[in-house]
């Protein structure tokens, strides 16, 4: 998170921080592992009232940012989600809300309103995305004919598909990538829950079997969703990164405190040089995680030409170095750090799962090299 927030941003962030502290203390988070949805509807609705879902939505649609940079503002919320290991589908709901506000038609207004009000949440299928190697089953395909869209295929894993009223799907059509907002109660949609390394987030495999929708369900121009998908990916990555950085910050603070409190061989752990130097590395990586994701968020808000490479650099760096950081926190805690009773794994899970979603570090390094390749000039 930025070292300097404006006072408005600070109030905004702090409101959410205080809400999460009281509504989802760690004991509550831990018990949500058996909750079918992973979060309570009331909790989400109240969060939406604090602005969790409105930052990427234009003012004319009832949204608005705090600072003028909606994604930067949203990263302060996401950071607190990470700090508190908070539940709730922050990434997909915001990606869909932002998309519907900018590219959605009149038909999508009621959905957008319910997302803003927090009375429903949305899921987003990260589709046949951009430069990764197309692993997993081929994504969905669709045909458009006679005023109808017909959708077939499978997508997995999809966050909050089982909790969402709508899923934003990217499908291959003859003309190119096409996006469709699919109500989850449409005939032909089936949702199979998956197992996950997360405690509170729920993922599903979603199958579309001859799903028929009116063309009003289309989002943006059919066949022209490449840039839209790229933009959504950038949003999802930056929000997920901000959560991960919040989780890393908490894990780091907790472990540093442990090193001061815990004695071994008559000395605090914090007095051992080898551990001190590892903390120095951790601190360096942590500051770097903050720095690169903040820069990525600003670049996406500004539609800057370096947004793609910054977003992927942030994902690749936070994924790899963040994982090593939090695993080193586990190591310094020793056995207690891998017990369910200890809090550390809640942060470890957040970092781990976010690393695997929306492209692994290796996938994003490939994306970066594509950017480099497309730079014609020899430096």
């Amino acid at each position, binding site marked *: 998170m930025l070292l300097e927030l404006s006072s408005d941003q600070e109030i905004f962030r702090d409101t959410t921080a205080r809400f999460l502290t009281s509504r989802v203390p760690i004991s509550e988070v831990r018990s949500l592992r058996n909750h079918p949805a992973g979060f309570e509807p009331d909790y989400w609705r109240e969060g939406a009232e604090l602005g969790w879902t409105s930052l990427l939505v234009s003012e004319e649609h009832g949204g608005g940012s705090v600072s003028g940079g909606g994604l930067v503002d949203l990263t302060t919320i996401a950071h607190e989600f990470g700090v508190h290991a908070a539940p709730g589908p922050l990434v997909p709901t915001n990606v869909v809300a932002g998309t519907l506000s900018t590219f959605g038609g009149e038909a999508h207004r009621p959905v957008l309103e319910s997302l803003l009000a927090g009375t429903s949440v949305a899921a987003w299928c990260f589709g046949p995305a951009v430069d990764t*190697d197309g*692993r*997993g089953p081929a994504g969905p395909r669709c045909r458009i004919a006679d005023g109808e869209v017909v959708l077939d295929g499978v997508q*997995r*894993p999809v966050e909050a598909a089982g909790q969402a009223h709508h899923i934003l799907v990217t499908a291959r059509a003859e003309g190119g990538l096409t996006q469709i907002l699919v109500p989850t109660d449409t005939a032909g949609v089936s949702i*199979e829950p*998956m*197992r*996950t*390394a*997360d405690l509170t987030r729920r*993922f599903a*495999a979603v199958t579309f079997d001859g799903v028929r929708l009116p063309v009003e369900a289309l989002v943006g121009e059919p066949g022209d969703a490449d840039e839209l998908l790229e933009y959504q990916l950038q949003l999802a990555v930056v929000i997920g990164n901000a959560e991960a950085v919040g989780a890393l910050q908490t894990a780091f603070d907790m472990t540093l405190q442990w090193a001061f*409190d*815990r*004695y*071994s*061989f*008559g*000395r605090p752990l914090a007095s*051992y040089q*080898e*551990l001190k130097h590892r903390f120095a590395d951790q601190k360096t990586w942590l500051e770097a995680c903050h720095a690169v994701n903040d820069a990525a968020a600003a670049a996406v808000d500004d539609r800057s030409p370096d947004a793609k490479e910054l977003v992927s650099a942030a994902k690749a760096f936070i994924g790899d170095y963040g*994982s090593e950081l939090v*695993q080193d926190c*586990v*190591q310094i805690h*020793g*056995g*207690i*750090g*891998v*017990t*369910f*009773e200890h809090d550390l*794994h809640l942060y*470890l*899970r957040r970092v*781990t*799962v976010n*690393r*695997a*979603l929306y492209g*692994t*570090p*290796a*996938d994003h390094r490939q994306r970066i090299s594509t950017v480099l390749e497309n730079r014609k000039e020899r430096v």
Partner: protein
Amino acid sequence: MTDAIEDVESFRLRARTWIRANLRPLEPHETLAPTLALPVQTEEEELAALARERELQRMIFDAGLAGIGFPREYGGQGLTTDHQRAFNAEIVGYEYPARLQAPTFSPCGAVLLDFGTEEQKRRHIPAILKGEEIWMQLLSEPSGGSDVAAALTSAVRDGDDWILNGSKVWTTGASTADWGLCLARTNWDVPKHRGLTVFILPIHQPGIEVHRIEMLNGSTEFCQEFLTDVRVPDSDRIGDVDGGWTVGTRWMFHERMLFNSPFVSIPVGTSPGEVGAASIVNVARDTGRFDDRCVRDLLGEAHMLELVGQTLRRRIGRGVAAGRISEQSAAITRLFAGVSSARKATIAFEIAGPAGAAWTADDGAAASCGDDFLMRQTSCIGGGTTEMARNVISERVLGMPRERTPDRDRPFRDVPRSASNRA
């Protein structure tokens, strides 16, 4: 009056013949070594498996193949690490009593052999080798971490007995073990290493209360024990009063040397608790990514680490056995295994891609990668941390100056400790 010992190759043939005639070949996919990452067994399943293993051990004993490195007078074979290694090669692919090997045969059995009285050895070692006694280690404590000698569990003399109070943690098999080897403090007025004593005690008794520890992946393999006024006769003391660190040092040596021990059967190629390179190949197959050069690079790295680890283990094991390098060099093997296992878990997780976050049974070998990754540091923590291994290598193997230990020369009761463990 010692017989000439059996030649390794003739022993190998004898073992091979018996194994093929008497033991069940494993099914493909079947694993014996329990790892943290495996699906959790119910207590009934665990007990049934153990009963079967006791039976197998008795068969092995009756065949004259049990306790390869234990002396013949205690029911063993009086043979060498080379014989054990031959046995380890022959047992590959067959059912065998995996759960009995550690900690029962070693370090517990090995410590009894090193320090037990004649009477203690005669009573327990044959019973161990017949599969009649399963043992556990009561060594680590919640307060102690790597500082095993800082045990707070106390043993107070009471006539011919000792009264033990305290808590032990990270024990395995508490619900199934018969006996335990326990390190306790008998003197608080001397520096920590000089006030410890080792005892043996039956586990199932009223003064011992056992709690299972839930790990983040749901496993409940580990326990914590609370000892309340547990009475142990002085005849169940191992080694001298206040001489427990001499025993403890050897105890931990046996623990580090498991893979090069003459007491323990581990099929060649096994690395318990590790994500094996072979299973990573399956992750690549099941995610359809074998053709990706980056994935192949990672597969090559994983297999490289495994081959290097095996050859290193062999080099160090032979070097120690031949007396060319110090026993402390076992820490080198331990360090390498811990770090490379963590790296392999990371490689598997990376290859699994989104299946590392969420999965179904359809994901095949990729399905457990996320949970394995969450648990990856256990390879660098359990059985002595990699930090302790690095201390041992630098100070004991390379002779570099010892760390400043403010607890070294002062009565243990005055040693600074963690806030939570202060008086």
